[in-house]
């Protein structure tokens, strides 16, 4: 109960050592493989089977991303937030989680959803909001599946960050050895949700891993104008949360850092903040036009650091892949995903009743009245010869 044993204590001076972790990691850039596919950190132990597995996930995420984009253009998907260029962050970080761990991502994380256990079919049903949509047509661009502890993202950026801390605190209270990971963008670090969540996580030593997917752009706002901080990772230091900056286009680096953070959390040593530096090659969403605010040459420039090309170069150098086997991987997944697209494309739409469901555990009287009104209106539409959509 006694917090102060002397009057000197609150007035003491502190030094860098008092922080309790190495703040240089929040300023540096952890990288295992450079953009030419050369290993630059021989001291890091690499599980090569895992690397091949992650490569395939990244390929699947890119093929799926292109398909959802195409489906949006033909009006089959309401809106899409393209993933191109960011596959290593989602795949590398989610790969560090075990099945009972929770992932609370943002939109734009197809690789992470696949790794956590959503299938292409579930993702496409969701994108097209058809009869098998797990989220029952409630929102666009977000994905989730309860049975694999993948919580659908909220559309307002960063709203999920405090939830991740709450889930982690609950698991800790119940003495479950569950770790929670949340992924969000550089823009979300400006919101109060981020700061409240980091503060709680630090104070309660919650078993949570925060991943900032710094893709350099929050719609039209470049990262340099999102904050005056030299890095995003440095923000964690003020909350007493060990923070690491990592090359987000290097899937091995992301996985290594994420695994270390997950293990720390599981040992009860508290939260970690990871800033994964990457680049959004496409528009913010299909409703955005980056031509208005950034030089189209810039996106081309970043193709040089494409995360998929980097792993491919590395695997070829290591003799774990050649052009022929790589072509087979792309062809196999392209054709498998195309089959799934065809299957999902023709599924029927959700029934109209979904617009009134899942508001309360049991419908309240006003919703029952409004359901009646909806049914009546459908009859009248029919009588008047009006189209439902």
């Amino acid at each position: 109960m006694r917090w102060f044993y002397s009057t000197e204590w609150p007035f003491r001076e502190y030094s860098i050592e008092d922080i309790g972790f190495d703040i240089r990691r929040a300023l540096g850039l952890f990288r295992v493989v450079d953009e030419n596919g050369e290993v630059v950190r021989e001291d890091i132990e690499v599980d090569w089977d895992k690397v091949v597995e992650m490569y395939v996930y990244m390929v699947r995420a890119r093929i799926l991303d292109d398909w959802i984009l195409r489906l949006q253009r033909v009006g089959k998907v309401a809106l899409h937030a393209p993933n191109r260029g960011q596959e290593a962050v989602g795949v590398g970080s989610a790969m560090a989680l075990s099945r009972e761990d929770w992932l609370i991502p943002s939109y734009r994380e197809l690789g992470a959803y696949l790794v956590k256990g959503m299938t292409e079919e579930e993702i496409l049903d969701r994108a097209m909001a058809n009869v098998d949509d797990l989220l029952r047509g409630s929102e666009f661009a977000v994905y989730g599946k309860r049975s694999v502890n993948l919580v659908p993202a909220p559309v307002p950026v960063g709203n999920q960050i405090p939830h991740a801390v709450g889930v982690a605190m609950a698991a800790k209270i119940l003495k479950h050895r569950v770790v929670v990971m949340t992924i969000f963008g550089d823009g979300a670090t400006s919101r109060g949700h981020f700061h409240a969540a980091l503060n709680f996580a630090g104070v309660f030593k919650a078993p949570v891993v925060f991943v900032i997917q710094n893709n350099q752009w929050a719609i039209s706002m470049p990262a340099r104008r999102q904050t005056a901080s030299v890095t995003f990772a440095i923000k964690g230091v003020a909350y007493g949360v060990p923070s690491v900056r990592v090359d987000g286009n290097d899937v091995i680096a992301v996985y290594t850092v994420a695994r270390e953070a997950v293990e720390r959390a599981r040992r009860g040593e508290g939260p970690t903040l990871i800033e994964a530096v990457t680049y959004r090659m496409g528009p913010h969403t299909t409703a955005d036009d980056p031509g208005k605010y950034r030089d189209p040459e810039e996106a081309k420039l970043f193709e040089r650091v494409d995360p998929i090309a980097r792993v491919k170069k590395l695997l070829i150098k290591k003799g774990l892949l050649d052009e022929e086997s790589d072509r087979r991987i792309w062809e196999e997944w392209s054709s498998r995903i195309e089959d799934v697209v065809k299957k999902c494309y023709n599924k029927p739409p959700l029934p109209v009743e979904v617009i009134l469901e899942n508001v309360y555990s049991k419908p309240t009287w006003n919703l029952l009245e409004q359901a009646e009104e909806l049914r009546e209106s459908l009859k009248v539409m029919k009588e008047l010869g009006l189209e439902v959509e």
Partner: protein
Amino acid sequence: MNMVQALNSALREEMRRDSRVVVLGEDVGRRGGVFLVTEGLIDEFGPERVIDTPLTELGIVGVAVGMALYGLKPVAEIQFIDFIYEALDQLLSEAAKMRRRTGGMYSAPIVVRGPCCGGVRGGMFHSQSPESYFIHTAGLITIMPSTPYDAKGLLKAAIRSDDPVVFLEPKVLYRAIKEEVPEEDYTIPIGKARVAREGSDVTIVTWGAMVYQALEAAKLAESRHGWDVEVIDLRTLFPFDRDAIIASLEKTGRLMIVHEAPRTLGLGAEIAAYVAENAIDLLKAPIARVTGFDTPFPLVHEKLYMPNVARIYMKLSKIMGY
């Protein structure tokens, strides 16, 4: 028992009954909350279940949502409900919509409770009645008790609810009323009003501390004119008990709504619209509203800002003389 003790005993009994129930908020531990609603809970349940948090309502509600996703039953205290606005994104966009936006896979049945309303010279940031914001958002249940007995039974029902509940406690009543409150377990159903006074001439629908103003005004109206006023204490503000309102109007044919919240888009407007749409044939006179003025809550002359006996009596005279 007064209302603070009744609320404390509801929390204590629910925490004993269900180990998933946790309390979190500012100063809820050793301090027992600034109004002592959580007093002593930390001694029985420890700091893991009675959690003193950093000072951020956004964090408290956001973290509570996460706890509920994992299966706990968090009861989040907002020190004064006037401070809830920082957390509205979490409450209105997340807690209220979690079931809907996850296709029913997840829900966030948290309880957000805190002292509300005026009467203690609290000024504009310790006196507000913000119920309309919550009622307007689909997915939330909003409750305001007016007696210690109801406070205990309703808080227990709120904690057992599968939907998120905003539980508003009129702080002026915390220690003003004492009554017998059973030590044993009981709940009061959500969505059911209470007839606080039976009458046959006019129905006053009200809630919270205004129940007592309405009862005073009813006494005055009876002694001066012999008017027989029925007072309905709504208790659950949403989903409100429309059957109780209609049943009363079938007897009286006259409706007045009294609430502390500002008039424009207050719950009174919704009740008036409901009756006008569904039961206008029952009405013998225009509907009247007595409410807080459409201003920030004042520090001075607060009794003139809040509905009082004179203002209620004034409008009663109008509708009875129509």
